[in-house]
């Protein structure tokens, strides 16, 4: 009698889909409504893009070229996201050990888990392009539905590449530090992709012109019957049958064959990271070489603890600095201008934006990242005071950094420095409020803490960054319009404020 074959790939995929659905169902209705509003606004942007394209009448080659460049950009960003997703596949969720002990072929489990990672990687990009594709399809351009297929194909390929990279990182850094290494590598990829996309702004004029010239020459060769490989994703996105077929079928085959090959390595690392953490990651001694030195004071204890933990989690600060890179093009443009006030305004806006990002990262790390919530809740200090002190501990370093940066701005324009200080304080307070209102205390049994609607909040945080940074820029320039973005930022904050205060345990 033969043994039963075990659950099918489809059965495992249904289990994975159920877990993903549960994750999505935790997105708060208010956040979902804001995302829907953003989606609606992006449809309007798509509509104006369609009108503009109709007015300009680009050639087919130009459309394919732009789409190919866009797909290349998406590829780099997806690779960054896929890397962290793949590390999470290997040792993020604790059920992999249990699944591997089930009578199911390992490659089947890894394939399903990786398929879910690829889907998770593709989803934000599908969300991003959906309004544009919708508008184009509604106007009768059904061929742009190919964009979806290409994005899914890119997700499959980048997931495999991310998995290979994750295995290299695991071998190099060990299980415990790989998660941090992956986030750093991923963030660097993302930032590089962004900076490449901004080459038009960042590059010196001469180099930029030479690149444009080379691109036009390529386009001319295509018009004369050439078919360069780098433009295939663009052609596939416009549903060119040959390119679409090769890219979609190729990516599926690449995914399936790679998973079959690397599944044993994934299983080994997953087991190693669960089964023998002490062997893989040796405990680190404190750099401080602590002595038994106790000091009095609740405030002091809380501040010292929060600062120690923040300093020992450099990933937060690294992420914030990487995010700040995304604002670099705006500053470069401003600094190239002849008007020194314009430069000061841009730098002031940048400082405020960084202050908000840093404050948000530190505050959410402090508020939601509490490792021992029961301990602090059981301490003889009122919950309100506790939260206030924790928030103050998170925001104090931000204001210190801002004060130093404002001194530099003051050398060019004291008025700009004042605006920088005032708006940074407002932005930091806004970020602190967000962290306080959306604090996610971990479930007692969920030590790893699932990220619920973090992506949505990141999106809103970006909107606040633009609003307060923009308001500062306009205020330093002396524009009365500065009130508009500031008011939008405050309106977003008011919309997110909890209607009913949750009763905290005493």
């Amino acid at each position, binding site marked *: 009698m033969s043994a039963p074959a075990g659950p099918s790939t489809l059965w495992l995929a249904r289990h994975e889909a159920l877990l993903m659905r549960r994750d999505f169902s935790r997105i708060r209705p208010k956040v979902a409504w804001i995302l829907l509003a953003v989606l609606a606004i992006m449809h309007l942007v798509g509509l104006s893009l369609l009108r503009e394209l109709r007015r300009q009448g680009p050639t087919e080659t130009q459309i394919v070229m732009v789409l190919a460049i866009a797909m290349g950009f998406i590829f780099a960003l997806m690779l960054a996201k896929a890397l962290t997703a793949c590390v999470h596949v290997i040792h993020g969720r604790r059920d992999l050990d249990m699944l591997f002990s089930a009578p199911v072929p390992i490659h089947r489990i890894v394939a399903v888990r990786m398929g879910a990672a690829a889907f998770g990687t593709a989803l934000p990009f599908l969300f991003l392009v959906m309004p544009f594709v919708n508008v184009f399809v509604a106007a009768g351009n059904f061929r742009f539905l190919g964009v979806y297929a290409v994005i899914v194909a890119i997700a499959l390929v980048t997931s495999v590449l991310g998995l290979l990279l994750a295995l290299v990182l695991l071998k190099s850094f060990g299980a*415990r530090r790989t998660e941090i290494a992956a986030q750093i590598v991923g963030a660097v990829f993302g930032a590089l992709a962004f900076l490449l996309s901004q080459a038009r702004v960042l590059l010196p004029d001469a180099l930029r012109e030479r690149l444009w010239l080379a691109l036009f020459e390529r386009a001319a060769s295509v018009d004369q019957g050439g078919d360069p490989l780098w433009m295939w994703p663009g052609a596939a996105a416009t549903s060119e049958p040959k390119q679409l077929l090769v890219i979609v079928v190729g990516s599926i085959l690449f995914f399936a064959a790679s998973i079959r090959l690397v599944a044993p390595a994934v299983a080994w690392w997953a087991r190693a990271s669960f089964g023998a953490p002490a062997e893989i990651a040796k405990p680190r001694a404190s750099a401080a070489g602590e002595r*038994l030195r106790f*000091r009095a004071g609740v405030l002091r204890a809380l501040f010292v603890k929060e600062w120690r933990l923040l300093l020992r989690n450099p990933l937060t600060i690294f992420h914030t600095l990487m995010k700040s890179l995304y604002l670099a093009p705006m500053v470069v443009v401003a600094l190239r201008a002849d008007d020194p006030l314009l430069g000061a305004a841009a730098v002031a806006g940048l400082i405020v934006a960084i202050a908000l990002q840093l404050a948000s990262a530190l505050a959410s790390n402090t508020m939601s990242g509490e*490792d021992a919530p029961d301990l602090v809740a059981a301490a003889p200090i009122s919950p309100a005071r506790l939260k206030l002190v924790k928030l103050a501990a998170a925001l104090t370093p931000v204001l210190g950094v801002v004060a130093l940066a404002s001194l530099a701005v003051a050398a060019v324009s004291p008025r700009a420095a004042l605006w920088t200080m005032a708006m940074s304080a407002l932005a930091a307070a806004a970020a602190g409020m967000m962290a306080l209102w959306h604090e996610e205390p971990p479930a*007692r049994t969920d030590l790893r803490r699932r990220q619920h609607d973090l992506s949505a909040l990141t999106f809103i945080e970006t909107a606040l960054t633009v609003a307060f940074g923009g308001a500062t820029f306009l205020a330093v320039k002396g524009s009365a319009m500065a009130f508009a973005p500031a008011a939008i930022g405050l309106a977003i904050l008011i919309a997110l404020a909890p209607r009913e205060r949750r009763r905290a*345990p005493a």
Partner: protein
Amino acid sequence: MIEPALAIRGLVKRFDRPAVDGLDLTVRKGELYTLLGPNGAGKTTTLRMVAGLLDPDGGTIAVDGVDVARDPIAAKRIVAWLPDEPLLYDRLTPVEYLQFIAGLWSVPPDVATQRARDLLGVLGLWDHRDQRCEGFSRGMRQKTVLAGALLRDPLLMILDEPLTGLDAAAARLVKDLLHARVADGATVILTTHILDVAERLADRIGIIRAGRLVAEGTLAELRGQAGQHHSTLEELFLELVRAPVEAPAA
């Protein structure tokens, strides 16, 4: 009149269903009280309310005469709560963890220094005092959390499944420390599923089921209540938790 260490009257807590349903419980000073009950009986919910981590829907809790609802800060000064999962700050060392605890509970620095030195030594953590907790085994984490609780010298210690995951030596150490606390006049309440531990450790045992206390007393008293003078605690426990639950008096 001497105040009991813990006095619970008509305690009620509902989630989807009643988790604690009109519970009355008194724990005297200087005793080691073990709370037993099947999964979902309401043991942890009760103890979390005593520690001030959950608000009751009804009833009162007094710790050493201090009403937990009226003066939660004063109550928290008296109580040390050790959850079943030893949650620590992975990036802090045991010494830094104890410094944080000492600050939060306002333990005078000289007292905290001496106690920390003693506790780290007794619990076998001295050689690991400058290592971050991220690489610690469950047993070491449990001992670090226990050191944090003992550092405050609490009148009432509440421990939820304190022996889960400990090896024999560590379990013995914890049991000895708890006995020493009780001998010093403190009160210890613990929950456990290991009935053998309850049988050997506890001065009195309370059995909770469906959020209500169904039996209480020393092992001999429990045997008497059940009319089974030669039964083991396991047999008594199974008998009591299987019996139908009576509706609370209106």
